[in-house]
Structures are given as structure tokens and as C-alpha cells.
């Protein structure tokens, strides 16, 4: 069932505070700055955890806007969407609501790398996110521009440790205070837009640039190290000016697969889905790129751009003399625009028009909005802890492109995690971390905070060491119970995950319990090629591992024990095939998790630490300040000997502290005993 009901757009807009004067309070637990993918997930997660949350955004109607491609998911990114959904985030359900073309990428390559993906209707996506936020209890949305981040001077006892106290808006009103502030300002931090030779300040076309005050606070007052990155977006094409009959049709899956574990179907009916089209660049495209190069200042600057989402200019320059793919994607059910994926460009608008007209289906195409480039500052994410809190500023959390990532899903994942931790901090709960052994979100955050970025960071499945265990199909088993414990998963989803988990466990036990000789199996299921040279009995679980075996087949042979689990037939098949590999992974995973559970105190002075460490290693540790022993082992340049020295140090300091605490407790108890010596028994 599709659980979401969408209220009419007009009915909820008045609920929004457009002026600070309308705010019911000037004190919140969590303030989220920015209404993109990171900001919306952060605000919703913080509110779910139980924090009074304020979301501040420049323009209410751009909350939940898809500023670049009209699609969600894909290989690696789809994994993130499933994990965000398992933690009760928004984007999976929003995708099911707004999707107009669903497909599972990599269908033939194994379930661990399946990539659920959908083309989206921009308007429906925005509507869903806005209606969801505005119906979230404890969440207020405010339109405004943040001028300043308020932080305390560092405590003299703890040099370099600031604390966030709130924000000040540009309209000159009184400050709004909060224990945690989550910044999700995307490309707006010192952002500049580039088209041809013109440059203007801003983070997205049509939106005002952010105040310089925020950048000043981050850089000058907090002393955070920033870097510069660039990205870009293609021109939007007028749909009816394109001859799609000259492109290759790519139909969606005949049965849409929802992103969300809570949905069994999508809003869009299978037959209502829209197709995509594929076409190729011609030598004329390359010619125009070269001709207009001198008019293209974005491409001439050497700010780091992504290698995997490059502009058509850099594709042509790096791989000349060949054709490149261009996907023509629908922008929505009612939209009359097409999104040419692969044609991100920054040349002058007239050159853009000439370029697209070199591609056969677009011979007579018109451009609605030209493509442009953005250059922006990001905060080097090695300055964050795994809870996405800035190490030197308590209560300040960063998420999304501000941390050097690219992509909606990467931003949303960080947003959720930062919002969760912001709320936990404001409610005096300890910070939470996700391990790279249990989730792609953990891989993403660990890569960011322990390695940093040199180019916009995007998720790939090859980044996850334990890919066979971290599958899109089991994200709920991996994360929903943990999310419930941490507070970001609400009860209905948790109940559903518990039901699924216990059903799967029962079904697997039933499969294990079926034990037959190979001869019997061959007689019962002649088509799956059970070899008969094995003398031992085989379980149903082992039979299900055969390529051509399905759970349906087994259930038809053993209906009384198995037919109750038909709902999970696909998941059971996947579990059976992957079980031996996951078992192999588990030992390594447990080892890493133990190391990650050994936290390194954040106030260690590595330069003077009284253990035998080389100067080189001390510098590495001082720079990276890993938060766990596990993170330390992954640092480049760490030696096994240094890890052992650290291990010993932490082990013995902990032991000493425990002894000290015990002694203090004993002393206290001794005193207590003196004080209440008349009591017969003492609570121990």
C-alpha cells in the first residue's frame, strides 16, 4: 500500500512562517540552514528524534527542489536511498511518489550491485518533501537568509573549542538560539556561477547568493580549512523542439520497484511511466567545444571538478575523437522540458545552442535555460567527527556539498546523520556513528572524515569493502533497528522491520530443516542441476543457492512449511546465495568493529604523547585526529607498530581510569558507609 496522502499545495503554504515575527519561539533545539536534500533530511530527522527544530531557507518554494538531474538512485546511489529509507528518511518515499520511470540498473549483475533508480517529476518531488516537512511535528520552516553563525569564544581551559549558540538573520531581527546548528548550504558558500565569460556570485541560477557573514565565521573565527570545487549543469531543452524518433528508446521496467521498504507500489501506474531516450555526440560537438574554448572561463580554471560527472568540454578534451552518450530524460509528467544528461556545459549560450544542434535529434532544438558552471567553497571534511560535528566547534554540524560531496543521495545521507546527531546533542544524548562495515552511509562518512576529498565525492559500490553484505535488499535489517534505538525511526517502520526480520529468520530455519539426499532433490526438482555425486544430505537453503532454483519452486514442493513466506521469495533467494560470502565477511567485520569501538580520546596531544611513535606518525595523527583505532589504521602512512603503541596506550589509560574511578567509588562508599552506618544494607 502507498501510505502517503498528499494535501493540496495551497493548503499548506500558509503554515509556513515567512517572517521571523511570526515565529512562536526564539529558541530551538536544532536549527538547520538550507532546504536542499541535506537540509530537508536533517530537519526531518532531528524532529523525529524529538528535537524542536527550525529549518531556515532562502525561498520556501525551492525546498525539496531538484536543482540538477531529475532522477534519484542508481548504482551505489540507490544503495544510499534504501539506507536513508531504512532510517525513516524522506527521499525514498518521495521518489516513490514522484517517480515517472522506474528501473533497476545492473539487473543481470547480482543483487549486491542492483541499482534502484527513477526519473522524477520535479514538481511532485518538491510537493512531497514540502508536505512531509510541514506535517512533521516539532518542525518549523522559516523563510530567511542567515547572516551570521553565533559561536562562543573558545573556553580558556580547552583552547580552540568553540560552541555554537545560534544564528542571526539578515533582516536585522534578534538572534535565534539553538544548541545545535546544521549547515547544509550546498554550493552557496562563496559560490560563483559561470556562463561563457560572465561570472556572477551565487550557488544556483535564480537564487540570491548567501551572505558573506557565514563564510567569514567558518573561515576566520573558527579557522576551518576550506577548498574549492566546481560542478555544472546542462542546458534544459524544449521538449517539442526535439525529434525523439531519431534517438533510441529506453523504456522503464514494466513493473516499478519502489525505493521504500514501506511501499509495495509507486504512485505512478506502470503504464503511465515515461520513457528515456539515448543519443550520441557527433564530431561537430567536439569542433564547437574547441572553437569556443577561449570564451569559456570555467573550463580554463583548474579548480577540481569531478572525473565522473564531467562537462561535455572535459569529456571531449580527455577522450577526443569518439562519441559520447547523451540521455534525454523527461523532467515531469506535465513539463515541456528535457534534461540532456551528459551535456553539462559552461560555454556562452549561443555556442551551447550551436553545440546541441550538432546532435541529430536536436537539429532544431531550442534551449529553455542555458547550462552553467558553479565554483564553490567546501569545508575540508577531515575537520569533522564521524557524527559530522565540526571537531573544534561543539554543536556545529555540516552536511552535503559543503563537505565536498556531489549528488542528492550523498547529501541526503549526510543530512539525515547530521540532523540525528544535532538532535541527540541538544537532547543530551551521546553522538552516534555508523560503521563502514554496516552501511554505505558509514562508508561515505568514514571516507570523508578520515580521508578527505580532492574532487567532488560520489558513491560507488566499489568503495564498500563489504559489498556482498551491504545490499540494497537488506538495508532495513541492517539499519532500521539501530535507527529505532537512536531515535530517528518511528514505531510503524520499526514494527514492520521486526516483522520482516522474524519472518525471514523463520523461513530460513524452515529451509535449513528440509534435508534430503541429492537423489531425492533431483527427482523433485529435475531442472536445477543438482549434482548427485554428493553423499551427504542437502538442505533447502543449499538447494536455493543453485542458479536456476527459486523459492517458489521449493514452496511448491513443501507448501505446508514454506508457502507462508511467499512474500519474501526474492529476499530469501538472495539471502541463500549470499550467505556463505557474508559468513566469510563477518569475521573481518567483527574485527574492524572491535577496533572502531576503541575510541581515541579527542584531546590527545600526539606531539608529546609518551609512547614510542615516530615523528612522521605523530604528525599524521595530529593532523587527522582519528576518532577510533579503526580510523587510525586506515590512515595513510600508519605503521603496525604505531597502531600497537596506540592500542597499548588507550588500553592502559582506560584501565587506569577505571581503577581510579573504582577507587574513588570505594572511597565514596566508605564515606557513605560512615555517614549511614545505621543502615543495614547499602545499594551497591
Amino acid at each position, binding site marked *: 500500500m502507498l501510505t502517503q496522502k498528499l494535501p493540496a499545495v495551497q493548503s499548506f503554504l500558509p503554515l509556513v512562517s515567512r517572517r521571523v515575527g511570526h515565529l512562536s519561539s526564539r529558541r530551538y533545539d536544532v536549527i538547520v540552514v538550507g532546504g536542499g536534500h541535506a537540509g530537508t533530511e536533517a530537519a526531518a530527522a532531528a524532529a523525529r528524534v524529538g528535537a524542536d527544530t527550525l529549518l531556515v531557507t532562502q525561498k520556501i518554494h525551492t525546498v525539496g527542489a531538484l536543482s540538477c538531474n531529475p532522477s534519484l538512485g542508481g548504482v551505489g546511489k540507490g544503495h544510499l536511498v534504501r539506507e536513508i529509507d531504512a532510517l525513516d528518511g524522506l527521499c525514498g518515499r518521495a521518489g516513490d511518489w514522484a517517480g515517472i520511470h522506474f528501473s533497476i540498473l545492473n539487473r543481470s549483475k547480482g543483487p549486491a550491485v542492483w541499482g534502484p533508480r527513477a526519473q522524477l517529476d520535479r514538481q511532485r518531488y518538491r510537493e512531497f518533501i514540502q508536505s512531509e516537512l510541514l506535517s512533521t511535528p516539532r518542525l518549523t520552516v522559516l523563510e530567511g537568509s542567515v547572516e551570521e553563525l553565533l559561536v562562543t569564544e573558545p573556553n580558556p581551559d580547552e583552547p580552540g573549542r568553540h560552541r555554537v549558540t545560534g544564528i542571526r538573520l539578515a533582516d536585522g531581527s534578534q538572534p535565534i538560539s539553538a544548541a545545535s546548528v546544521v549547515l547544509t548550504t550546498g554550493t552557496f558558500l562563496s559560490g560563483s556561477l559561470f556562463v561563457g565569460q560572465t561570472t556572477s556570485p551565487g550557488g544556483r541560477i535564480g537564487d540570491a547568493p548567501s551572505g558573506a557573514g557565514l563564510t567569514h565565521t567558518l573561515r576566520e573565527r573558527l579557522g576551518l580549512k576550506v577548498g574549492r570545487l566546481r560542478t555544472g549543469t546542462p542546458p534544459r531543452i524544449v521538449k517539442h523542439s526535439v525529434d525523439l524518433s531519431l534517438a533510441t528508446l529506453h523504456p522503464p521496467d514494466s513493473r516499478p520497484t519502489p525505493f521504500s521498504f514501506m511501499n509495495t507500489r509507486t504512485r505512478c501506474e506502470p503504464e503511465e511511466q515515461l520513457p528515456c531516450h539515448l543519443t550520441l555526440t557527433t564530431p561537430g560537438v567536439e569542433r564547437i567545444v574547441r572553437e569556443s574554448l577561449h570564451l569559456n572561463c570555467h573550463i580554463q580554471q583548474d579548480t577540481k571538478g569531478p572525473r565522473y560527472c564531467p562537462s561535455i568540454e572535459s569529456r571531449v578534451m580527455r577522450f577526443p575523437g569518439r562519441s559520447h552518450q547523451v540521455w534525454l530524460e523527461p523532467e515531469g509528467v506535465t513539463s515541456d522540458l528535457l534534461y540532456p544528461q551528459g551535456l553539462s556545459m559552461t560555454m556562452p549560450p549561443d555556442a551551447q545552442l550551436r553545440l546541441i544542434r550538432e546532435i541529430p535529434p536536436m537539429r532544431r532544438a531550442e534551449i529553455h535555460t542555458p547550462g552553467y558552471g558553479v565554483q564553490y567553497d567546501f569545508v575540508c571534511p577531515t575537520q569533522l567527527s564521524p557524527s559530522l560535528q565540526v571537531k573544534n566547534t561543539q554543536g556545529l554540524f555540516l552536511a552535503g556539498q559543503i563537505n565536498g560531496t556531489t549528488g542528492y543521495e550523498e547529501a541526503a545521507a549526510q543530512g539525515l546523520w547530521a540532523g540525528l546527531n544535532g538532535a541527540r546533542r541538544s537532547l543530551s544524548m551521546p553522538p552516534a556513528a555508523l560503521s563502514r562495515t554496516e552501511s554505505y552511509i558509514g562508508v561515505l562518512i568514514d571516507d570523508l572524515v578520515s580521508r578527505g576529498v580532492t574532487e567532488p565525492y560520489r558513491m560507488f559500490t*566499489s568503495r564498500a569493502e563489504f559489498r556482498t553484505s551491504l545490499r540494497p535488499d537488506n538495508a532495513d535489517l541492517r539499519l532500521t533497528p539501530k535507527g529505532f534505538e537512536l531515535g530517528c525511526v518511528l514505531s510503524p517502520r520499526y514494527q514492520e522491520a521486526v516483522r520482516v526480520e522474524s519472518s525471514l529468520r523463520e523461513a530460513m530455519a524452515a529451509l535449513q530443516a528440509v534435508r534430503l539426499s541429492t537423489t531425492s532433490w533431483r527427482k523433485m526438482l529435475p531442472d536445477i542441476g543438482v549434482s548427485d555425486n554428493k553423499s551427504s544430505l542437502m538442505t533447502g537453503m543449499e538447494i536455493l543457492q543453485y*542458479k536456476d532454483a527459486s523459492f517458489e519452486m521449493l514452496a511448491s514442493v513443501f507448501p505446508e512449511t514454506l508457502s507462508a513466506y511467499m512474500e519474501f521469495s526474492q529476499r530469501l533467494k538472495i539471502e541463500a546465495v549470499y550467505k556463505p560470502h557474508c559468513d566469510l565477511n563477518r569475521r573481518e567485520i567483527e574485527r574492524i568493529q572491535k577496533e572502531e569501538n576503541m575510541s581515541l580520546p579527542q584531546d590527545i596531544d600526539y606531539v608529546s604523547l609518551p609512547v614510542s611513535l615516530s615523528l612522521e606518525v605523530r604528525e599524521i595523527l595530529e593532523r587527522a585526529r582519528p576518532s577510533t583505532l579503526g580510523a587510525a589504521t586506515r590512515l595513510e602512512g600508519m605503521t603496525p607498530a604505531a597502531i600497537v603503541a596506540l592500542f597499548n596506550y588507550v588500553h592502559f589509560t582506560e584501565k587506569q581510569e577505571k581503577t581510579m574511578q573504582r577507587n574513588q567509588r570505594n572511597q565514596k562508599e566508605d564515606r557513605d558507609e560512615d555517614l549511614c552506618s545505621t543502615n543495614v544494607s547499602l545499594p551497591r
Partner: protein
Amino acid sequence: FVGLADADTIFALSSGHGRCGVAVVRVSGPASATALRRMVGLTHRLPPPRTALLRSITDPCSKEVLDRGLVLWFPAPHSFTGEDSVEFHIHGGPAVTTAVLQALGSVPGMRPAEAGEFTRRAFQAGKLDLTEVEGLGDLIHAETEAQRRQALRQMSGELGRLYQDWSHKLKRCLAHVEAFIDFSEDELIEDGVLERVDRSVCDLQAEVKQHLKDERRGERLRCGVQVVIAGATNAGKSSLLNTLCQRPAAIVSPIAGTTRDVVETALDIGGFPVLLSDTAGLRDSSDLVEQEGVRRARERVHQADLTLLVVDSTRLPSDVQQAADFLSDHLRTVLPSLKQPETGIILWTDLLPEAQTQKLQQELRRVSGLPAVCLISCQTNEGLKDFLTVLQSSVKTLCGDPLCGAPTLTQARHRAHLQQCAAALAQYQRYRDADLALAAEGVRLALTSLGRITGRVGAEEILDIIFKDFCIGK
């Protein structure tokens, strides 16, 4: 790295090498009992705990008798590591130890121990006291250094090139499979990528298997402690070599740059095998042959267990007070890459007046922070005896370390990793059509196993190859 409760069972030679009658091989971990049963052909009952038994030790696969020796069974927790442990006391020749180590490697669940792993496990089981624990980091440092040098020696040869070549090919295979997984749905990944990977994996697997089968293919590994004589040109390095081996093994002349290549001699010092190398004088030269000689000399120093720096005493400052400073400066200039292995300094004293030699000796004894300095007269051999005593004690210390100069152990380690590599490649083939993610996992495991010989390969390196070989850009 710091496994808190490793489930693997590890083994290693835990006695030194050189002239020893008995070698001790230690096994620790849950599969110890299995290893003991398989190696001595027990079917049911294990021997009584901590009691030495004389048994025939056999290869579990071929059933060939490898040696007759003592076996001891230490059930947990009463062992050095606190885990189930076994000790094999066998005859101390390289042939026997290699055979036993290789046989242990073929028992399922067993792998060669990493540096310091026995001690680390003992520490985790609470079997060490604080001082022992404090030394653990240093011990592991020393062992990793010894392994690094040993690996470098092997990797610089033909074998090393072979492994590097495999590693390179595997990296490409993995990058291409990963590119196909992460990008082929959106990007133009040309046809035939996977078919090329199939062929490479098949060829590689055949090569690795052939290599494991063919005992003769491995080059003969140089045994013993590697001592290298280094120094500036014309310092008298070749004279030292000739003095030590008591025959004119190297040509000596007053012409700077006489020795151009590495001259090697096997020696027996105090009963321990030593491989002594004389190298070209270290100086900048425009002569191509000499440049190559200097490169080889530096490479040799990098791989050495012990370096002897020879200095011509006439180059010392006339004020003996400054001699120590001069020597430490000289050490830094001539051997800048030297991290901190064992080093000794030899000074030729022939051309100094006797009174100054004595003053020098007193002064150098006084200062600290320098490696051991020996003063020798080439003509009268005065000081040679003292030098030999110093050299012998260094060599003895080095030989006490079972990892140092023992190619058999490295061989056993390589073998285990190569076997894992071949098995992992079979996983690729098994899953190639059914599940590419599991097939890729096979290539990844193969690369990890090989990486334990050639060095680790990270995810970023694979992504670099992907972006170099394919135009990815959606």
C-alpha cells in the same frame, strides 16, 4: 590490525637460524589441534598437555614423512598466547623447516603469522606484563623492518617482477569489472571488457598454479645476514672485504671508483651465515657505468641487515674533539636514506700518527649517539680483533631474530598467499555468469592475497584506473 580475538590459526618459525640443531615451529589458534592431528597422523586422542612426544611429522597431503621430532600440545589457556597451541621441535636445516612450514600452510584455517602476532595475542590474553607490552611496539617495528628488508631483497629480483606483473594485471581486471558494475548502465563501456577480463583471469590463474607447482622456478634465495660495506670512493671498502675473507676477492687500487658493481662473498662469522657485499663508492659521477654502480650500492644498503660505513681517517678534522660531529655529518651525507638499521663505522688508521689514533679512540668512546666505531689498521691489522668481536655480536643478535635472513619463511608466506590468490580467482570463474558482484569479490580477494606480498591496493587506486581507461561522464 589489532585483532582482539582472531579466529585464524597462525604459525611461524620461532627459533633463529644459522648453526642450530633444533628449530621450533609454533602454532597458535583454534585449529591448532587439527594441525597437530594432521601433521602427526593422530586420529582421536590428543597427546597429554605440555608433554614432549617423539613422532614422525608428515605432510598431510602427500603423507610423506618430513622429519622425526618432538611435538608438544598446550591446550588453552595454559600457553604462551592463551590459545590452543602446538610446538614442533624439528631438525634445524632449511629443507626440513621449509617443508614443515609449507605443510602447515596447507592445513585449512592456517596462515603464516604476521609480525609480532604471537606476542600480540599473548598480550590480548593478558599473558604479558607491562614492561613486555611496552616493548611490543618496538618488537613489531623490528619484525616488520626485517620482513620489509627480506621482501625487498626478493622483490628486487625476477620473482618480484613476476609478482608485480601479476598484481598489475589483477588491478586492471578488478578495475574493469568494477567499471562494468558501477558504470556500464549509464556509460559507454565498450563491448568485450568482461571477455578480456575472463581471459586475463584464466591466464593468471594458470600462471599462479604453474608457479606453485614448479619448484625449480623460484630463484635461489640468498641465505644469511646481509652485511653491506658502503662509503665514499676510495675509502678502502674493498680492502675491508679482502681483509674479512682473507683473500683478494675484490680488486683494490688507489684509483677512486675501482669497484663498480656489487661484489658478494659468503662468510661464516662466529658460526652464523653472513653474505658480505662490497659496493661502489658513493659519489656523483657522470660515468654511466659508475652511476649504475652507485644506484646498486644504494639499493643494497636499503636492503641490508647491517651496514658498515668505511671512512678514510685522513679525512677526519685534525681536532679530535670534532671527530664525532664530522662522523655523524658524514653518515648523513653519504647515506641519507638510511633510516636506522644496524650500522657500524670503520676507520682506517694507517696514515695517522699513533698518538692521534689513541686520542681519537678515547674521544669516540666518550660520545654517544654514534653507531659503533672501530679503528683498524689495514697493514698491521691492529684493531681487527676488536672489530670482529663487535661484528660477531651484531650478527648473533640479528640471527636470533627468526625473520632476519630466512628466505624459507618468506617463501612459506608467499606460498600461502599465492594459494589463496588462485582459489579466489576460481571464485571469479564460478560466479562470472550468475552474479558479477560475487565474481568481482573473487578478484578483489585475489588482489588482497597478492597484495600481502606486493603491497596493499586501495579502492582509490582502482578508481584511478577506471577513470583513466574509460570515459565516465553522465
